[in-house]
């Protein structure tokens, strides 16, 4: 079943990559002084991409299990090495694709044309959008790696050039972390393909092929360190890249400084989407290709994820800079996603998948709000803000709804994912679920401190704070709508993704 049927014979997925790139090309041709034209070009290409992705989501057939991909496209690239241009979408990537398109649109809408070198800024944004979409759509591991690295470059410049504060330090730290992770992943990709080659005699980097022949056997480590399973080794290679990107405790220290330095449009995409790509990679590759290793490392990684929940929550409690506070809140929430993934059962993984969308929506809204506060107040320090609800009641109301979603209020979207994740975790490891529950209580604490500390009490300060403009309300409304809709009636989500998740090898053992 699907909402409607899209005509066949159209490379729908390639279009979602090409449209942002075409937009980037037009931006490149535009004169740098025509900042409004550049912004409109960016908005139009992001909007068309979003409409296209919505069409894909609407045309997606529900209930097609057994590792079935839709809108598949496959072109030969380097046939001798088994490398191809293979795209497809399934339940794991479908809604993330939508999140990707939505967040890029919002980010470009809030990008300020007075930004220096605005042309390059938008240009990099559109390239980044194509890269992140490519990560979600690639079914060939080399293709995936290319997109993964392609994402890094614009992101690095967006922080390093347009950032604030210790931007160079932040960008460089992020780069070092990421390169280490990427390198480990590259080695693992090559090794996976090599093992598959030795098993089948046919070179292939294709996910749909590799999943059929999970690696086995073990490796005698040098220096008498004992043996380790090949699958475990490969798992570590992939996981390192993804765990850094999420990030999972204790690989997170690039995060606060990177999020804090990044300008608001960048951090929306960075926190809202890129962190989710790490989580996506864990499900797509680690859970799918290395099910045995996923089970053997699951408890340990779930423990790290749970520590991250509590650690991020405690850190958020004492931050004085709102952007930093949201950065740690994000880390805490990502711990939930990690916990769901490593619970490695149906409800845990589905909870993690829906929470990826929820987290993207919520954290983007929170960072947008921090940006709106900073633009009006000239500061993000909690101590310099007070009682703003009196001068900006609409702002206060929308901020409150976002806060409630962030603290997981039942009836809004954050609860849906947290409930399923904790249920999945409870099935697998009760103590971790209980610890996550403490994280929920801490979230209520730090989120309300954040809201009340800036918008309640009296007298209002700083002076001159103003109410939301229409464009501000406009970018928040779609996110708020998603918070309510997913909270009240989320069944569209399992209807679409259930079949894919059930077919994951990690659940079939």
């Amino acid at each position, binding site marked *: 079943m699907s909402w409607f049927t899209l005509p066949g014979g159209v490379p729908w997925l390639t279009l979602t990559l090409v449209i942002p790139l075409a937009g980037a090309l037009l931006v490149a041709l535009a004169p740098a002084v025509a900042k409004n034209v550049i912004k409109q070009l960016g908005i139009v290409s992001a909007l068309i991409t979003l409409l296209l992705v919505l069409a894909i989501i609407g045309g997606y057939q529900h209930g097609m299990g057994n590792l079935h991909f839709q809108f598949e496209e496959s072109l030969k690239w380097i046939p001798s*090495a088994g490398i191809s241009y293979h795209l497809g979408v399934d339940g794991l990537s479908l809604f993330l694709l939508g999140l990707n398109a939505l967040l890029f649109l919002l980010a470009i809408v809030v990008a300020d044309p007075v930004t220096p070198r605005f042309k390059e800024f938008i240009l990099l944004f559109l390239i980044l959008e194509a890269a992140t979409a490519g990560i979600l759509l690639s079914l060939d591991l080399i293709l995936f790696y290319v997109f993964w*690295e392609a994402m890094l*470059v614009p992101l690095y410049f967006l922080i*390093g050039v347009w950032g604030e504060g210790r931007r*160079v330090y932040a*960008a*460089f730290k992020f*780069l*070092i972390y990421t*390169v280490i992770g*990427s390198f480990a992943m*590259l*080695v693992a990709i*090559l*090794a996976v393909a*090599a*093992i598959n*080659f030795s*098993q089948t005699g046919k*070179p292939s980097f294709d996910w749909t092929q590799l999943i059929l022949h999970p690696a*086995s056997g073990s*490796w005698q480590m040098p220096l008498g360190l004992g043996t380790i399973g090949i699958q475990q*080794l490969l798992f570590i290679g992939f996981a390192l890249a993804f765990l850094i990107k999420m990030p999972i405790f204790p690989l997170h*220290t690039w995060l606060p400084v990177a999020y804090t330095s990044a300008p608001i449009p960048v951090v929306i995409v960075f926190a809202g989407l890129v962190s989710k790509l790490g989580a996506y990679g864990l499900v797509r590759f680690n859970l799918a290709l290395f099910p045995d290793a996923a089970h053997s490392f699951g408890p340990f990684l779930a423990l790290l994820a749970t520590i991250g929940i509590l*650690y991020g929550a*405690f*850190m958020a*409690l*004492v931050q004085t800079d709102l952007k930093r506070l949201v950065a740690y809140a994000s880390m805490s929430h990502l711990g939930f996603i990690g916990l769901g993934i490593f619970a490695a059962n149906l*409800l845990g993984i*589905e909870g993690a998948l829906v929470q990826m969308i929820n987290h993207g929506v919520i954290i983007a809204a929170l960072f947008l709000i921090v940006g709106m506060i900073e633009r009006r107040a000239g500061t993000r320090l909690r101590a310099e803000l007070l*009682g703003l609800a*009196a001068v900006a009641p609409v702002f206060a*109301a929308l901020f409150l709804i976002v806060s409630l979603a962030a*603290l997981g209020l*039942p*009836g809004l979207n954050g*609860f849906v994912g947290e*409930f*399923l994740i*904790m*249920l999945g975790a409870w099935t697998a490891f009760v103590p971790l679920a209980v610890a996550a*529950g*403490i994280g929920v*209580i*801490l979230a*209520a*604490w730090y989120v*309300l*401190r954040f809201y*009340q500390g800036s*918008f*309640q*009490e*009296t007298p209002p300060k700083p002076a001159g704070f103003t109410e939301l403009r229409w464009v501000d309300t406009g970018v928040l409304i779609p996110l708020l709508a998603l918070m309510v809709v997913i909270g009240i009636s*989320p*069944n569209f989500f*399992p*209807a679409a993704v*259930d079949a894919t998740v059930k077919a994951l090898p990690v659940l079939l053992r």
Partner: protein
Amino acid sequence: MDALGPLVLLAPLVGFLLLALFGRLLPRPLVGWIGAGAVGLAFVFALAILSQVLGGQTLDQTYFTWWQSGDFFVPFNLYLDPLSTLMILVITGIGFMILVYSIGYMGSDPGFARFFAYMDLFVLSMLLLVMSGNLVWLIIGWAGVGLSSYLLIGFWYERTSAVLAARKAFVMNTIGDVGMVFAAFMIFLNLHVLDYRGLFSRVHLLPKGGTVITVICLLLLVGAVAKSAQLPLHTWLPDAMEGPTPVSALIHAATMVTAGVYLVARMHLLYDWAPAAATTVAVVGGVTAFFAATIGTSQVDIKRILAYSTMSQIGYMFLAVGIGAYAAGMFHFMTHAFFKALLFMAAGNVIHAFHDDQDIRHMGNLRAGLPITFWTFLIGTLSISGFPLFAGFFSKDEIIRAALSAAGSEFWLGILALITAGLTAFYMFRLFLTAFGWEWLAHDERHLHEALPVQTIPVIILAAGAVVAGYIPVAKFLSPVFGHAAEVGAAAFWGLAALSVLVGLIGFFFAYLLYARRPELAVAWRTRIAPLHALVEHKYYIDELYDRVFVRPGFALARFLNDVIETRVIDGAVNGLADFVMVEAREFRLIQTGRVRNYGLVMLGGALGVVLIVAAFLGYLPFRLGG
């Protein structure tokens, strides 16, 4: 009936949305009547449901699917039986009175529309809580109640004390929510259902009195205790007095704190199956009833005294449902709703007359100045004290009788409840005699003004209820849910009645002696028991204890993580490693050499990759392939 259920929810939902979105644009009178009218309309629908339930109908209707995946199935379904019908009647009926009263009480507040929007949201959440036919939507309603109370307690958000009180209420309620969520997990994992019908039919598959069902019931109790302000999660309730007085009336009478009682009654099949957990409920209730009553004797803020009286009365209800006297607990819930709403609203009139002064020692002699409020408050006081033939008399006696006729620990809880009844009469008449007085002041120079009719009429209606509600056959109405209660002999009935009246009279006598007749005695006695009095007056120092044990260590830990672990340990290790590898990292310049260097790094990764591709296909990887 399929349509009536959603209509009951729809009325306050529409009211809430209208006021939240357009409230500031609408004229004030319209705002008030939309806010109150929405709940009044819901009451009309509830009456229609009542007529069908009286005809023997029930409802369990699914309207849409919330989440389905494997055997995890959560519908949105409404469950209407006599129990939930009684609840929605009280919520909408008493709620309507409170909202009409608010039109007058909040008349000059600049946040008028916001107030009514929140109140409608409150009623909506509470209705959802009692009408839901499954645990997930129960939790959603449950949390909605917590949210609404947060919004209303912190309604005057300019006040720091209100902001802190609101947050405290929310966080403590969240603790309860998490307990409920865990209970739902255990139910699902053991019985594979989350809807009531399935749950109630399968609960017998668990071993009776076993660990699983006991833990489930105790986790549910965590939620119930937090929401109903019972020990040990009660500390938010007195602080909740920061909200406007009608909010207190709504929280204490029609919604919120009664939710815990409803939960245990709704889950009575589970508690019947877990005797140890049920006994825990009873002990929590009995002890809280006594504990709160003792604090009530020492407070001087009129609303705080009423708040502790609520805690105490809810304790009675917990005691009742804990010993299996479910109908008695629900009966007391209903009579309490009348007299407690009345008491708060009458107190609100007094507070207005005294320009927001809430200290009972500044009041007194109100019979001439505030005649309606005086007489209605007296009716409420008599009812809560269990004066014969008033509503509270019947329902409280039923609980005490049920406890006394039980064997074992329940018997002692019954004795405790009897003593608490005496304390109740004492602190309520202390309040009444101090704040309202007994003598006729011939010449009152304070120029007190009685409240507007829109405030006094609802109070009068509730006063009538506080007298006659005891004659409503609630137990019979609920018998399809809880079965028929045992017949009570006339001797037992009147014997206990005499006993409890005697206890009440003793309480009254001491209140009269100390606060009307010989006030100097009160001073003398208080100095004689000074340490004990300080302990009670400071609410047994539980707030201070929680502050030392949870709040401060929590912050200390957070600061330690932030100042030491994050910066010095984790990041210190990372940066130290980085410095070791790349000494010149700090002088890094993006525009000059840096960019090249970064590209170099990426290219290095790429080059290594190419080397490895070649190596892989030539078979030079450092392990044997394929096992």
